[in-house]
């Protein structure tokens, strides 16, 4: 342990360690306690311990309201595998985790390009006219709490009094009179997804704008001189250069989409027509507090955690593979 401790100093950095490792002075120990011990303790108590407890409770038949319960092993997981409503909610959550990040990132990237580099074809590289205004406006939805967004859109989608049907019938599309956007199997999920994308796109636009601003303008100028159009510029210049931001955005969005509880609870608190918008956290919540089956609900939570981890792993691997292919183009 002592010998290789100083073996690999970073390139260009001077090795700092001199002599034997410092004594355990009070200074040193208190420093370690405060900056290592306390955060570690908090992490253990508030992250690791609930995690382990969840694993344990997932294997009990705890009702949630009494101190007594029995250990049932993997029965809950067997039951989950056969539970058609839970399977439906897993499907919906996974669907959200695929569609919402993709749609959000594509739109956010387009917006970000428009307000930074997709301006006039002559002169310096710049965004569209009035781009600072668009940039601010696109951020507005993100400043509204998700529950408010959900409630507002639930009203917009109202079949009789809603703004959307009002506009559609107003321009002569009579078949949308009393059309229940959130009540039809075919439209409930897309309508809900639209609300989520609408809510999230502003923040990621700003994120991508910041990332694009970090790219030297000369590169865009060079691309333009070589005759690259706007779409080509996004695909071949912007995207490879802000790859890391896109990857981070994808993971954050995926986790937000796997949760989705607030939006779905506001739009369709009971899971939508034929459970077409039911997501895992909703089913978990209802099983725990509505049906008083905390043990079973905890098992759902464990599955949700696994799906989230799998999703993050899939994104990392996906980007690794994609990066491997066009890493030659990276600067």
């Amino acid at each position, binding site marked *: 342990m002592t010998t290789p401790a100083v073996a690999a100093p970073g390139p260009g950095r001077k090795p700092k360690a001199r002599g034997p490792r410092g004594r355990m002075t009070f200074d040193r120990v208190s420093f370690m306690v405060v900056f290592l011990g306390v955060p570690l303790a908090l992490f253990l108590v508030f992250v690791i311990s609930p995690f382990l407890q969840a694993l344990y409770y997932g294997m009990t038949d705890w009702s949630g309201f009494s101190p007594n*319960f029995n250990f049932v092993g993997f029965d809950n997981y067997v039951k989950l595998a056969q539970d058609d409503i839970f399977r439906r909610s897993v499907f919906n959550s996974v669907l959200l985790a695929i569609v919402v990040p993709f749609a959000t990132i594509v739109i956010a990237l387009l917006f970000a390009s428009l307000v930074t580099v997709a301006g006039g074809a002559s002169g310096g590289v710049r965004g569209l006219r009035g781009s600072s205004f668009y940039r601010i406006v696109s951020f507005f939805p993100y400043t509204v709490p998700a529950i408010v967004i959900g409630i507002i859109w639930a009203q917009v989608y109202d079949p009789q009094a809603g703004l959307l049907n009002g506009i559609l019938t107003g321009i002569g599309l009579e078949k949308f009179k009393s059309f*229940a956007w959130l009540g039809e199997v075919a439209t409930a999920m897309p309508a809900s997804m639209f609300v989520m994308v609408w809510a999230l796109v502003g923040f990621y636009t700003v994120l991508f704008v910041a990332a694009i601003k970090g790219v030297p303008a000369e590169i865009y100028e060079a691309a333009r001189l070589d005759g690259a159009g706007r779409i080509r510029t996004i695909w071949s210049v912007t995207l490879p250069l802000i790859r890391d931001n896109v990857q981070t955005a994808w993971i954050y969005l995926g986790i937000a989409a796997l949760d989705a509880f607030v939006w779905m609870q506001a739009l369709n608190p009971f899971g939508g027509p034929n459970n077409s918008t039911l997501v895992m956290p909703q089913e978990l919540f209802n099983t725990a507090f*509505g049906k008083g089956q905390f043990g079973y609900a905890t098992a759902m939570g464990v599955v949700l955690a696994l799906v989230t981890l799998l999703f993050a792993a899939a994104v990392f691997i996906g980007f690794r593979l994609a990066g491997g292919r066009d890493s030659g183009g990276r600067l």
Partner: protein
Amino acid sequence: MRGSLAAAALVPIGGALASCASSGTGTSTGGGAATTAAGAANNPFGVASGSSVDAVIFNGGYGYDYVTFAADLMQKNQSGVTVKVTPSTQIAQQLQPRFVGGNPPDLVDNSGAGSIGFNTILDQLSTLDDVFAANNLEGTKIESTLYDGVREPGTYNGQFLAINYVLTLYGVWYSQSLFAENSWTPPKTWDEAKDLGAKAKAKGKYLFVWGKEAATYYQTLAVDSAIKEGGTDVRLAFENLDPKCWSQPQIQAVFAAMGECVKNGYFVPGGAGTQFTAAQAQWSNDQQALLYPSGSWIENEMKKATKDGFKMTGVPEMVLSSSPKLPYESLRSASGEPFIVPKAGKNVAGGKELLRVMLSKDAATNFTKTKLAPTIVKGLVPADGFGSTALQSQAKMLDAAGKNVFDYKFVTRYGTNKDMLVVWNAFLSGQTDVAGLTSGLQQITDKVANDSSIQKEKVTK
């Protein structure tokens, strides 16, 4: 030095880790200290003077001020006793840790969408027979002042554990003024309902309306109709989650009638995407629909969204034939707002005393007057119904029903309402037919029936 520091850092962690979510002991013996003056006429449960009572009340359609009213009375009667009334809209979420930890409140109104499933807490509740056996503040035995059948909804596995305070009856509600204007009469049978639907359509109106969170009001209507038609056997099949309960001929006949109404466009379209109070306003304010099946809370709920001169009135739910097993006048009357007294509460006697005050004349009259709904205490609705036609009609329906009241709990007991909503929304919007409705509902009940981890209750009468 190093070791001791590490140990010092680990001790609190260990403690925190050990105190996991369910480690509460739950052995505190409630009511142990409250023995002073037990049995005295003005203090039958022996509330200790100087003690405090902790009541958590569901803050829904009826608010919680009626309990505060009773609490003030109780504080006046019992010297030195303080009562704390806390409103809550999420009973289960808020009280779950307190039940697990063994320090629940002394009185809980376990109601609303976020209520605690009864089968999870039954063994933690005090029996309340002694409250009904006690005298009210006027000196009359409480049980003799109540409507028939009020003990039933609060009885679980033969034990009387919850006092349902508000008398809720289920009926079909309409606007007396609108009906008089068009010389319509409220339907008594499903055939009459279909006729009325055709008449409504001719006027550009609809027969029924529904909202997405309340689609199962039509399940209540259907099940009640079937029970009136077929009697107790039909009800018991549902209560015991019979594998063929949704295929009983009576319920099938009602479903068929409803299916026809759906097919003929007698329902306001778009209900599956409409918030339920907005849908109800299409009936009470816009008068697009003629009838709405609901519990008697409907008047209070829609108070602010009811057209002037609407004259809301209730009638019993429709029957199928001219010779139903239970008469047309029979009602599903489920007293609602279940008040429970947890065994482990610090002041069990105080919780019961507060219930005793609530069941006495002043507090009960106050409730009826301010909420326009009857409590389980008889004879407190004056002839003018405090100016409410709905309350008048409720008193009339209850009198006409007499002993012909029934109730069932198979939906609330097993918490299946949410799953059933999905099936009903699909049916009422015409996405599935009667067969789909039947198999969907049967699947939901079968799932509960076949799940050995859910404690079942056998209902025999």
